[in-house]
């Protein structure tokens, strides 16, 4: 009995050790990004290539999702507002919800699934097939070529995708409002712009930068530290999505608290 308790304690302590080791490794990985990003050589060509892959190739999925979110959210909000005879507030309500929270969140979650898992799997597969070692022995810094470029690309492209999602979702919302309330496009968007403040747009872009950084960094970290062959690649891709989504929600919560401080003032 005492032996069993001892073994359990030992296993538990090993897990705690592994957790803190992983945390320290992740910290060093992030620290290395800031050490390498400002030092030449700069991989501009690869950054642009990654921006294209992350940005342009995500457009169809983001467009469809954003459009559906706009329509569904408008449809679901209408009954509540109509109870108070306030359906004319729909454009304002939808605009605020989309710009402040839904646009950034939906885009980041879609990107975590599509881009984050892709990065995790790609780098993980390069790791287990020794392509990263091959890069290193040919005197190329693989961290700079693979990690810095991808993290920069996600950090730059997610805010752009968020603005695009906001637009597409608002278009979806407009179509729904137009069909039901016969509101013209100019009236709809006039109401949208009168209810959205500079702080809403600014905070949305800033938090999207953090979302993008998180998606890129987690995907790269999980891929770069993957092991155990193809099974490890699958795990890296899966962990990249799960961890990024978890961190995105935490960041959303934190950003809400910080932005509210500015609103109260």
């Amino acid at each position, binding site marked *: 009995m005492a032996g069993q308790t001892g073994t359990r304690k030992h296993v538990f302590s090993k897990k705690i050790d592994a957790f803190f080791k992983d945390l320290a490794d992740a910290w060093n990985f992030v620290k290395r990004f800031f050490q390498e990003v400002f030092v030449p050589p700069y991989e501009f060509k690869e950054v642009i290539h990654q921006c294209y892959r992350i940005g342009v190739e995500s457009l169809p999925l983001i467009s469809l999702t954003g459009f559906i979110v706009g329509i569904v959210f408008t449809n679901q909000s209408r009954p509540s507002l109509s109870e108070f005879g306030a359906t004319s507030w729909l454009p304002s309500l939808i605009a605020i919800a989309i710009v402040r929270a839904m646009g950034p969140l939906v885009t980041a979650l879609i990107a975590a699934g599509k881009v984050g898992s892709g990065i995790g799997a*790609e780098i993980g*597969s*390069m790791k287990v*097939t*020794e*392509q990263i*070692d*091959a*890069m*290193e*022995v*040919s*005197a*190329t810094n693989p961290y700079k070529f693979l990690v810095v470029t991808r993290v920069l690309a996600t950090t730059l492209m997610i805010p752009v995708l968020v603005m695009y999602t906001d637009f597409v979702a608002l278009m979806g919302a407009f179509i729904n409002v137009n069909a039901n309330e016969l509101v013209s496009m100019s009236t709809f968007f006039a109401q949208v712009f009168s209810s959205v403040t500079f702080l809403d747009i600014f905070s949305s872009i800033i938090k999207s930068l953090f979302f993008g950084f998180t998606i890129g960094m987690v995907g790269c970290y999980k891929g770069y530290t993957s092991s155990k062959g193809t099974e490890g690649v699958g795990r890296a891709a899966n962990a990249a999505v799960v961890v990024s989504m978890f961190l995105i929600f935490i960041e959303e919560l934190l950003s809400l608290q910080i932005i509210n401080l500015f609103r109260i003032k």
Partner: protein
Amino acid sequence: MDNREKVVVVRDLYKAFGELEVLKGVDLDLYREENLVVLGRSGTGKSVLIKIMVGLLRQDSGSMEVLGKEISRLGVRQLNEMRLKIGFSFQNSALYDSMTVRENMEFPLVRNIKNLTKKEISLRIEELLDAVGLPQTINQMPSELSGGQKKRIGVARTLVLNPEIMLYDEPTAGLDPITCVDINNLINEVRERYKTSSIVITHDLSCAKQTGDRMAVLLEGQFGALGTFEEVFPHAEDQRIKSFYDYNFINL
């Protein structure tokens, strides 16, 4: 007393992974334009030895001198300069999946040799693809190549920077016997044509016999035998070396 120039000098090299001691005081010399074959069973640390040579791993103690410089004392820039003089052909070729054969070969070239014109780059790539007998694959993706073709392209990619030393990690692993002979011939041709000194890591005695000037057999972290094929194998007294030979040739 051997007066030939030594390009790699390994002395009393130790390397462990946790509690697993892999290399336990390894001594080794590689002479200029020599093909040295390092043999041993899987997990004996053969690949670890050459990974220390290019700075992918660091030894726990002992010295690893390559072209007169101690690898563990080199800074990042010096290590990268040294890496340009060493070609490393990986066990599974390690071609970049997302690039064509041309882009795979351009990658080390354009990053390390500045001021090359597009024509010069193309000429260099075409010359090397001719040398490995695969000029037609230039625009193909690695996924479209056979195992043997990948190995050849992998070798061509390492040669693009004119290395002085070639390291081959299991060059014939997973290939059919005929392709193995082709790869062995390629290793010999590379030495003849580009005047390289090579270390070939393998557990394939046919490959060893065909390519090696000397054999070094790694047994439990140390070299158990060192010499020509005839000196080391047919009449080996050490049971472990004898069984290695028997399983490769006699048991067939």
